[in-house]
């Protein structure tokens, strides 16, 4: 199938979940939720998807339910956002430590208070270290595709880890746009049935999520960390084989007009598309700017990013969350660590942008990049960052 079909991004995501033929969807159905699980509940009720829809009383229970179902060998999906992800926080760590290949879509939204239903990355950055594979997608097509890619990678016996697909709340989740869908036969060629490494089975008892004394805990954590780092090879293979199936090639880090640029802009999620328009406009004006997009957040693609940032003397790092009281903000901290021993060390301009749904325009990117072009490449003050668009 190659015809583009118009639908809301959330609906496209649930169609991908249907194509993945999941066994269990467990979700809390009320705010902060998206149309993703609403449409899945319709698909199950109408008999279009042969799965259990477990309507739970909280996101804590939603995550607990898919931990149980995944441990029993069922392909399991959930979706949430904002406070919902925060309420899951405790169980996120259990899912990854128990090596359960659950797939979850997080429609990234701000955290309260003040109460905000709008988009930023505060939710996922607060759960950043939960041990899941974490993707950031930038449009509806990537959202649809990554549901299938995420299951394929997560369930690979060499990985056996859960995965989060971060898609920007509202800015993506509520937009109608064209998608190229896959059919069941194409998906069957790409995504094999789930064969868990081990599962709860009364006839063959195993223990999962056991008690570990200090003699054992450290070794378990080492194994878990190695599994997440090593998942990178499987992720790359998942993307490569997806490209062979569809022609759509994804990479951990992508560049846009970045070659030889004096200033590079680093973006994640839906901002990347709008930013690319700003890069086009500025390149037409003869300005030396380029774009680097980070699609894979965990495992962090350190080598790829270092290569993509190349010899740029100035790097503008966008953050969509504040790390309160920290030396710098989440993405900038990662990039600063990565470039600590780069020679010469580029200057990092950390810009916090689009918090709580504040609209981000092409002109905002142009202003940010022009400012960086006008500055020296010598290191700025420690911990310096700017809140873009804030009213003083």
């Amino acid at each position, binding site marked *: 199938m190659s015809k*583009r079909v*118009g639908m809301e991004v959330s609906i496209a995501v649930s169609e991908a979940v249907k194509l993945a033929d999941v066994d269990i969807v467990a979700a809390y159905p009320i705010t902060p939720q998206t149309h993703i699980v609403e449409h899945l509940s319709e698909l199950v009720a109408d008999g279009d998807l042969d799965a259990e829809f477990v309507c739970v009383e909280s996101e804590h229970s939603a995550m607990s339910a898919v931990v149980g179902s995944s441990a029993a060998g069922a392909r399991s999906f959930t979706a949430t956002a904002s406070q919902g992800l925060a309420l899951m926080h405790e169980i996120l760590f259990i899912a990854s430590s128990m090596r359960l290949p659950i797939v979850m879509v997080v429609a990234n939204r701000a955290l309260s208070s003040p109460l905000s239903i709008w988009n930023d990355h505060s939710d996922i950055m607060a759960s950043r270290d939960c041990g899941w594979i974490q993707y950031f997608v930038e449009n509806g097509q990537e959202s649809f595709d990554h549901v299938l890619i995420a299951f394929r990678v997560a369930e690979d016996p060499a990985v056996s880890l859960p995965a989060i697909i971060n898609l920007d709340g509202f800015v993506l989740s509520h937009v109608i746009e064209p998608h190229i869908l896959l059919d069941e036969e194409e998906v069957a060629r790409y995504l094999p049935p789930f064969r868990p490494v081990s599962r709860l089975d009364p006839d063959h008892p195993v223990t999962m999520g056991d008690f570990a004394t200090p003699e054992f805990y450290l070794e378990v954590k080492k194994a878990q960390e190695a599994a997440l780092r090593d998942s990178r090879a499987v992720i790359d293979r998942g993307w490569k084989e997806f490209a062979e199936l569809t022609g759509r090639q994804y990479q951990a880090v992508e560049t846009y007009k970045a070659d030889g640029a004096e200033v590079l802009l680093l973006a994640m999620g*839906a901002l990347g598309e*709008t930013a690319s328009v700003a890069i086009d406009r500025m390149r037409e004006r003869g300005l030396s700017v380029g774009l680097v997009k980070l699609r894979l957040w965990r495992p962090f693609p350190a080598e790829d990013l270092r290569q993509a940032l190349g010899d740029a003397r100035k790097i503008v790092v966008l953050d969509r969350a504040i790390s309160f009281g920290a030396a710098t903000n989440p993405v900038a901290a990662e990039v600063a660590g990565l470039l600590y021993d780069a020679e010469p060390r580029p200057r990092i301009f950390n810009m916090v942008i689009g918090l709580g749904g504040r*609209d*981000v325009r092409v002109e905002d990117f142009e202003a940010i990049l022009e400012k960086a072009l006008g500055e020296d490449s010598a290191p700025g003050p420690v911990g310096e960052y700017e809140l873009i668009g804030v009213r003083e």
Partner: protein
Amino acid sequence: MIETRFHGRGGQGAVTSAELLALAAIQEGKFAQAFPSFGPERRGAPVLAFSRVDEEQIRLRSQIYDPDVILVLDSSLLDILDVTDGLKEGGTLIVNSNLPMKELASRFHFEGNLWAVDATRIARECLGRPITNTTMLGALLRATGIVDIESVSEPLRHRFGLIAAKNEKALRAAYEKVEKEEIRP
């Protein structure tokens, strides 16, 4: 790229108008987006929706600030906000109004084309209720030609099922009846 801003009140279906336009455009093989101005959803409160239609893939994901086309579903909004804010020079304003055209036109000071139709009346006649989203979409298609009127049938059927025919009738009636007036500042 043609950018359209839709003004309505919660419950009148401004978001649906934007969605139907985008779905029809995608059906024609074009690229399109539709999205609401995200906010607390209250019946009767002023709401905004947006659409973009282009021959090429659309990369813009900000709201729309200087639209080519503005569609107003509810004439009472004219009293409380400047619906022409940001309209491009030579742009198109389409209003649901039962005022005589000259009287309506005298209220505006932009450079472009004003189109008007009594969509509330058409909607009452065709649908039995004053929900003007599909009716005003008919006016928009005539005024702008963004998509062919035939391309809307399938999205209408998908969206409205049994009452799609009534909505299509309202849409076609507005398409026929909408009138144009050039506005010069």
